[in-house]
């Protein structure tokens, strides 16, 4: 019941924003600012640009929120704007944006960017700190192709459903399902040796 109330409150907040209530918009930013930071944090390798990009996202939200037909889909819509902002930033940066070894980013003009990156080295020590494991995991996420990175972050980090992800990325449910599975497989492959060590040390 509480969650329903919260949901209704959120929808009411969005409706107020759509009517031009700046106070409501401020509350909206306060509510969802960390979510935008989280998605951008996992998508963007250049961490110093996150705040700038997040600000850009919210400006676009402010400018476009009236176009949102279903306030209930705000979260997905917010992620769509964030991902579009990220993609626009990648377009602007061109080949400065890092992609995975086995992925290429298709530019609008048809060119593909292939950027080489170092494969993650395995740490030989048996006892790795949790932070080291997280750093390795975050590095592996950033090395995923954009399409896989986006879905796995939205699913695992943001806790979004497949429907929400499908809406956010404007893709089918089947594609979401497939991409999430493939993203997980790629992460497991890249972290396999470390996961074995971690599993062994826990056993």
């Amino acid at each position, binding site marked *: 019941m509480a969650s329903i109330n919260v949901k209704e409150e959120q929808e009411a907040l969005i409706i107020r924003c759509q009517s*031009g209530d*700046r106070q409501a*918009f*401020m509350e909206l*930013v*306060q509510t969802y*600012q*960390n979510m*935008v*930071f*989280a998605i951008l*944090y996992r998508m963007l390798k250049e961490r110093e640009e*996150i*705040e700038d990009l*997040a*600000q*850009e996202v*919210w*400006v*676009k939200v*402010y*400018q*476009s929120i009236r176009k949102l037909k279903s306030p209930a889909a705000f979260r997905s819509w917010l992620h769509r704007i964030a991902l579009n902002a990220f993609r626009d930033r990648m377009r602007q940066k061109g080949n400065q944006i890092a992609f995975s070894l086995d992925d290429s980013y298709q530019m609008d003009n048809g060119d593909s960017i292939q950027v080489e990156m170092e494969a993650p080295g395995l740490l030989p020590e048996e006892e790795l700190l949790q932070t080291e*494991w*997280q750093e390795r*995991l*975050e590095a592996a*996420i950033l090395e995923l192709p954009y399409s896989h990175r986006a879905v*796995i972050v939205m*699913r*695992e*980090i943001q*806790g979004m*459903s*497949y429907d929400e992800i499908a809406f956010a990325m404007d893709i089918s449910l089947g594609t979401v*399902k*497939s991409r*999430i*599975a*493939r993203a*997980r*497989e790629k*992460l*497991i492959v890249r*972290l396999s040796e470390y*996961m074995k060590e971690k*599993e062994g040390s826990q056993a």
Partner: protein
Amino acid sequence: MTDTFDPRRNTDISSFLDQEAPAGENTRQLLESSFGAQVHYRNIENISRACQQQGVPVGQHPGFLDRLMGALDGLEQLAETEDFECLSAWHDGMHPIEDETALEQGAAQTCLQNIRSLAQAMQALPQMQAQADFADIVMAALPQDHRDENERRLGQALQALPQIQAPEGFAQQVTQAIAQQESLAETNAQRLTAALQALPQPEVPAGFAQQVMQRIEALTQDTHSQNQQRLDLALQALPQIQAPADFAARVMQQIDTLQQPISAEDTENISACLDGELSEHESRQTLKALQANPALSRQHRQHQQLSAALQALPRPEATPGFVAKVMLATEQAARPKLFALPWLMRSRAGQMVAGFGLFGLLVMLSQTLVTGTQGPTEVATGPQVQIIQVEHQPEDLLFTDMIDMDNVLEHVAEEDYNLWIGG
């Protein structure tokens, strides 16, 4: 002078020699006067010595020497008997005598007694195995004067010794025994053969010979085959390594893993199942697949581990004052940027329109200065006119009430709006 010494009737010399009795006057006189007594004395002495040399325990058999010497002395006396051999042969049952009454008379009687006595004496001898040269030693011990005679007599005496008489039918029994032994040997051989044949024979599998022949043929096919066979045999002969108890199970698990490849659909289903995005039916099917496929189950565990790790990642938070920055940015973004409108300056026509617009603005300002304050006048149609109107709104109004700004912007064409906001 006739020597009347009769050794058969005198035992004093023997007792004297054996030191069992003191020599009497008669014995001394006899030994001094009688040559026969002296010979007898020497014979006893020599034979005693010979017996001692041979280790014959004469002393343990009282009267032995007496009987022996008596026998020898008797032989000496009987040496003159012509029919001695006949009597000896008769005694042994080898020579029949027609008139046996003669044996009870004269010298024949004495000779026969001597033979019997000798036989008894010899039978009474301790049965010992004498050395092969015992007779020679005895004879050598005798006085040389009577050696030849004594040797002859001893030979006769030895011949006269009782021959072992085999019982009647002994030879037949022996023959039968031998025959029986031969028969038994044959029987035993037969039994042995039968026993050997009755031993449990090793089971030879059916077709064993054929297999052997095939292997032999295979071995002779070519060198490679031979080497392979030899290698197999050598490997089989190697000490067998004891595998761990669960080795077979682990191998089978590996095989199961190999035999059950994971399809992309399986992977997608376990991933979606983990996210709770499958229907009830799909979830049941996926759980069944997990139970049946160890590799899929392992992959599922990896997904779980990865998911837990991803969800445990630290969540970045917005920087302090971020909301204020956003609000300011939205205000700034909402302000139209006249001189930044790129569409206006892109084409020559646009530049001309902008020029006219600027000219109109200057005219308007001059009129305002001449006629006083009045509302803005539309000098042209299109979005730029709207912008001009906005630019003439009081500044405080523009930045204090964004709703008014938005109302103004609502009149702007959507495509131009998108161009402004860069979307």
